[in-house]
């Protein structure tokens, strides 16, 4: 079934690329949604089993796959609305949808992969698909963004490959050459620590390009800014989760070796620097999409703090990436309607949004409350648990620094958001503003309320999956 899914999904992508007919295009996209949903169900029913040797339906993969499938449906709907309004040529529409489908498929495969080289291969594929999405507008700015994204991702992927080579050297001393996570876990006591250390440094650095941490986060920011907003929503949520999966699975092995404390130190440094960088840029940024993107960097920093602190932090980290994906994608989906009203990405040109589109303004307001982790946001729960884990593992200084930085982030985010929502701007011709269908905000409400529901009153099965996902880590 997994093989069938991969073949069908990639053939749909190929057909979309070749097809120029509008109706057939929509049929293929709907077909892909059906395939994606049925594969998700298949994965749920085959929980804890393996497929095709290199894929396994474990708790972490399943949780993130469900998140991906839920987000990909509104992403494709909003893509349809976007394409309809932008008078796309058949060729550029074909490339866009083909890239979306292959991006979603590659991320699915990367979530479920149980072998580090397989994750690496699908990470390459996501770079390829994402670069096509970023280049969508084919102008100077798009070219600049694509070039930077491709170049930094290519270097990151090379870093991961070097890391895999070092990992193989580390494993060779133990007399094995199977790089699957299960086998690495079995040989965890016999891995050569020197090579393992180098492997962790390179693999971690490489995957930060996808996860959005210092040092490689820059590529992602430009990408989310330049790509069309429905694609940007995927880049800012589920693609970041893919980086998290890769780092988390490898970290789980390191956590059982003597390098545990050292690895935590590296993660702490990267996470703290990320939050710091995000804070600095958040106070300066004037581009709405980049503001959302920097908020994502800050959240991934918080997630990795949870991972490094351990204890309840593991649970909270996985919860946080899931909730963040829902919240951030809904903000990106709403962005297009905002752009249609104000015809600008700049915060300075936007204002008094409540007057022009109340439903959309509520999404922005509620998204802001969620993204800054104020109650009743679900992210309040996960962020609170991460702070508790920092407290319990006696990282008080780090906790204090993070709290100060987060206060600045909330101030900057709040200042900009409230300006967009309430402050009137001069020079807007209210008569000529486009009428925006309030139903276009519906999917955003669904996503935001899912985040609240999963945070405040999670269903039992969800909690069990979360607990099972972090079981491989030491307590």
């Amino acid at each position, binding site marked *: 079934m997994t093989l069938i899914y991969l073949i069908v999904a990639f053939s749909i992508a190929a057909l979309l690329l070749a097809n120029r007919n509008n109706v057939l295009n929509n049929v293929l996209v709907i077909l892909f949604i059906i395939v994606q949903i049925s594969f998700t169900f298949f994965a749920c029913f085959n929980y804890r089993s393996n497929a095709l040797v290199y894929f396994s339906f474990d708790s972490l993969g399943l949780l993130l796959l469900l998140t991906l499938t839920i987000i990909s449906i509104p992403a494709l709907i909003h893509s349809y609305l976007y394409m309809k309004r932008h008078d796309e040529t058949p060729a550029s529409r074909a490339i866009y949808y083909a890239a979306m489908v292959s991006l979603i498929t590659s991320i699915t495969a990367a979530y479920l992969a149980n072998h580090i080289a397989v994750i690496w291969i699908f990470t*390459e594929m996501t770079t390829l698909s994402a670069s096509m999405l970023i280049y969508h507008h084919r102008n100077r700015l798009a*070219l600049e963004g694509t070039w930077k994204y*491709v170049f930094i991702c290519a270097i990151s992927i*090379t870093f991961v490959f070097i890391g895999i*080579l070092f990992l*193989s050297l580390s494993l060779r001393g133990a007399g094995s050459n199977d790089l699957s996570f299960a086998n690495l876990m079995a040989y965890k006591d016999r891995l050569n620590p020197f090579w393992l250390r180098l492997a962790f440094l390179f693999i971690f650095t490489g995957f930060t390009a996808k996860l959005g941490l210092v040092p490689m986060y820059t590529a992602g920011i430009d990408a989310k800014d330049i790509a069309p907003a429905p694609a940007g929503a995927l880049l800012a949520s589920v693609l970041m989760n893919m980086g998290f999966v890769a780092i988390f699975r490898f970290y789980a092995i390191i956590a059982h070796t003597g390098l545990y404390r050292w690895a935590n130190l590296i993660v702490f440094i990267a996470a703290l620097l990320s939050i710091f960088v995000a804070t600095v840029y958040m106070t300066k940024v004037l*581009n709405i999409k980049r503001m959302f993107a920097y908020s994502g960097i800050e959240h991934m920093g918080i997630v990795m703090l949870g991972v490094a602190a351990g204890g309840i932090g593991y649970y909270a980290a996985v919860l946080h990436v899931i909730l963040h994906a829902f919240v951030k994608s809904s903000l990106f989906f709403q962005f297009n309607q905002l752009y249609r009203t104000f015809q600008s990405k700049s915060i300075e040109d936007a204002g008094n949004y409540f007057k022009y589109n109340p439903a959309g303004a509520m999404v922005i307001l509620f998204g802001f409350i969620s993204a800054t982790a104020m109650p009743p946001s679900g992210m309040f729960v996960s962020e609170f648990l991460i702070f508790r884990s920092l407290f319990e593992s006696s990282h008080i200084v780090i906790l204090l620094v993070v709290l100060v930085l987060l206060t600045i982030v909330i101030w900057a985010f709040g200042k900009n958001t409230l300006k967009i929502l309430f402050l009137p701007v001069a020079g807007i011709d209210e008569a000529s503003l486009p009428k925006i269908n309030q139903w276009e905000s519906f999917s955003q409400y669904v996503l935001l309320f899912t985040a609240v529901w999963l945070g405040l009153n999670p269903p039992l099965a969800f909690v069990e999956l979360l607990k099972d996902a972090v079981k491989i880590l030491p307590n």
Partner: protein
Amino acid sequence: MTNVLLIIFIISLFYVSIANRLITYVRVLALQGFILFGVTFMQLNKIETWNLVLIMLETIVFKAIAVPVFLGHLIKRNKITRVAEPYLSNFMSLIIVTAIVVITVVLANSIQDSHLDKIFFIVSLSTLFTGLYFIASRKKIITHVMGYLMIENGVFVLSLAAGNEMPNLVNLGIMLDVFASVLILGIFFNKIGDVFKDADVDRLTDMKDY
């Protein structure tokens, strides 16, 4: 013999660090491709024949011929000025590359591992850092690409060190090559040449936060 080839590989790094013209960079990349072809042939003597043939075809076709020819074509077609335009003087470049090689040699000698051929480690790590240095210290986009290709050559050397036990890793390295060549050279560089006439990184500064 493998050692001789790898030492020539290191010398090519020194040579390229003081090179002024872009075409010299291209020639060095081609030379490195041929060296890797030779090293592959001598090093991977325990893997299946068809796999060896595949790997050797990749090194000779991609690394030694296709990519350099394509780069040369790009330089001509886009009328890129023929000087590399480094930020630092050649003398400083040479000192830095020498320092990189010396540091990797010292680092490699501190490792106690009988499973690793040290010269592979030294060559690949110094190529990696030299490539990063080239990316940081050269102005043109095309020299960034060349720096990246050099990094890939270095990584390929490292994958050869583990190649007899795990031929799949070498195949992954080939995938990386093909992927990067397609992505960086094939799709974009043509376009970048059209849009950015001078193709300097200084021109890539339109995206701003404020």
